[in-house]
């Protein structure tokens, strides 16, 4: 067994040579198109769009800080009232949001981690390994991206009903582990981010394919894996149709099921509904506030190649 350690000469460990965290961002020199400075009109339009994007979110918080009576008056409120904490508290308990947050974190976390892992190894195989059927399989992956999951819900629902998995989290997790987009995304990234020579070098050192993945591919893919993980987390967190079909508000809801249940309940207290919507959105808005730049970069990165 000592042979395994003699594999990689300490002088040139393959994993340190490929770490280039700056890869995700495009070099400034490649930017082109409009390097002209923006005029005042451009800033006005941008300001309008920014307000349009953010206003409904801010107003959610404003409405959540009022009460039902105030929301049934004109003009509508434009500033915060004093009910925010009370409403958040009631919505949290009424909508079962504590459990919902816990469930959604498990679902989105498991799904994102699995998708990232499986997409990275599959993306690596499609990007760098030669095997029979590669082209055809890649076509299937791309074709899969075009088929909306909504069309498959009926047999999935029959399966879940037969296994008596309704109201159980695995019913939501399992179908969310497949992401053709993830495979495509990682393939596009690894094609340009992972030089063939490094794989060759590891091969010459006698590394098996699995060791190559572990010591060469994963370090090189880390930035893209982070972005894909965030995109998948957001997507699974916000998933609505399938969780809505198999989970109920009282049994193991995800956040979206719980929030939607608030709106469909018998107590149409609008300020409470807004409080629930606010709570359901807040975690992701925080993620975006912190990692916004990386997420923007990731979406743009995926777009150029797509």
């Amino acid at each position, binding site marked *: 067994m000592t042979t395994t350690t003699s*594999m990689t000469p300490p002088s040139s460990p393959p994993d340190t040579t490929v770490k280039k965290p700056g890869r995700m961002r495009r070099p400034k020199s490649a930017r082109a198109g409009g390097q002209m400075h*923006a005029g005042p009109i451009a800033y006005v339009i941008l300001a309008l*769009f920014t307000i349009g994007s953010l206003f409904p979110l801010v107003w959610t918080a404003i*409405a959540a800080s009022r009460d039902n009576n105030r929301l049934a008056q004109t003009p509508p409120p434009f500033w915060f009232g004093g009910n925010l904490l009370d409403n958040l508290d009631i919505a949290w308990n009424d909508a079962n949001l504590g459990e919902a947050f816990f469930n959604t974190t498990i679902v989105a976390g498991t799904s994102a981690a699995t998708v990232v892992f499986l997409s990275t190894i599959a993306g690596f195989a499609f990007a760098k390994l030669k095997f029979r059927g590669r082209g055809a399989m890649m076509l299937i992956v791309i074709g899969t991206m075009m088929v909306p999951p909504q069309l*498959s819900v*009926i047999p999935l629902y029959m399966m879940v009903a037969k296994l008596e998995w309704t109201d159980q989290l695995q019913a939501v997790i399992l179908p969310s582990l497949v992401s053709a987009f993830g495979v495509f995304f990682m393939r596009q990234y690894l094609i340009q981010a992972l030089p063939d020579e490094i794989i060759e070098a590891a091969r010459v050192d*006698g590394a098996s394919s699995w060791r190559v993945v572990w010591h060469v591919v994963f370090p090189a893919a880390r930035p893209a894996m982070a972005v894909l993980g965030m995109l998948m987390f957001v997507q699974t967190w916000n998933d609505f149709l399938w969780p809505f079909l198999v989970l109920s508000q009282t049994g193991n809801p995800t956040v979206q099921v719980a929030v939607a249940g608030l709106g469909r309940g018998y107590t149409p207290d609008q300020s409470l509904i807004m409080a629930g919507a606010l709570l359901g959105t807040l975690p992701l*808005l925080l993620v975006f506030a912190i990692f916004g730049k990386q997420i923007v970069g990731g979406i743009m990165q995926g777009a150029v190649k797509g």
Partner: protein
Amino acid sequence: MATHDTAAPPAKEGGAAPGRPPAGPTGAERRRARLSRRWQRDMRWSPYAFVSPFFLLFLAFGLFPLIYTGWASLHQVEMTAPTDMHWVGLRNYTRIFDDDFFWNAAKNTLTIGIISTVPQLLMAMGLAHILNYKLRASTFYRVAMLAPYATSIAAASLVFVLLFGRDYGMINWALDFVGIGPIDWQSDKWPSQIAVSTIVIWRWTGYNALIYLAAMQAIPQDLYESAALDGASRWKQFIHVTLPSLRPTILFTVVVSTIGATQVFGEPLLFDANKGASGGSEHQFQTLGLYLYEQGWVNQHLGRASAIAWTMFLILIVVGIVNYVISRRLRASS
């Protein structure tokens, strides 16, 4: 045992030999042969090992359900006994095509799709053009425009229900200033479809703008410089340089938006919380996605719901073929 095959063939020559009879070298050779065989097996099969988890999951949760939907659409299946299937041939399809609500839902899906997609992509294009200028705080605008994308359908729909409220909603309050009387955004057909589309537009414009922006940044600068030398105005440059370069991206976003538009579900479901699956009291904003849900989960006819899903699938295939033909034409012409 997985660690064994990682040994480099020539690494151990002296180690195993001491005290061995002349059979030693052949033993080493045998090991070397074994290792290289293992090596070849690794090179040959590991790609399949890497892609197989994805394909196995895809088979189980993607392909199989899709095909089984087609099979179920030829049967009578009720929600109460999902395993009890009776062959009915194409009757589910004839039933659907005879149902006025199906055509109503198909029309609504089409109009909501157009109202939501066309302005969305046009605005995204303009926005991307502006974001492509040198800007102060450019990251801030990009993140701000992506905030709706981070908002779930459920939360967004619930807020817009309030904003579009007939009596106390902010939008009617603002319209009042320009002399437009209170609009019933829920019961009237076109206003309700515009309101539902607004939710879609709000959530996706910023995302599409980023995709266009990425494509714009990949256009080589010298194309603009030579256009400027020829005396082309900024507008002309946009028409003759930017748009042609963005063709594949535009096609991509159109396809993705079309797929999204065929399956609009949560927005209309939550837009009238009391009516739920019917999409308004007169079905005025019931989409195909909602119609599928109504047939399958409210009326409990899973077979008929499968027929709706399969019909939607066929529509998407037609869209895909049209898209393929158009993109080939475009490539041939340029």
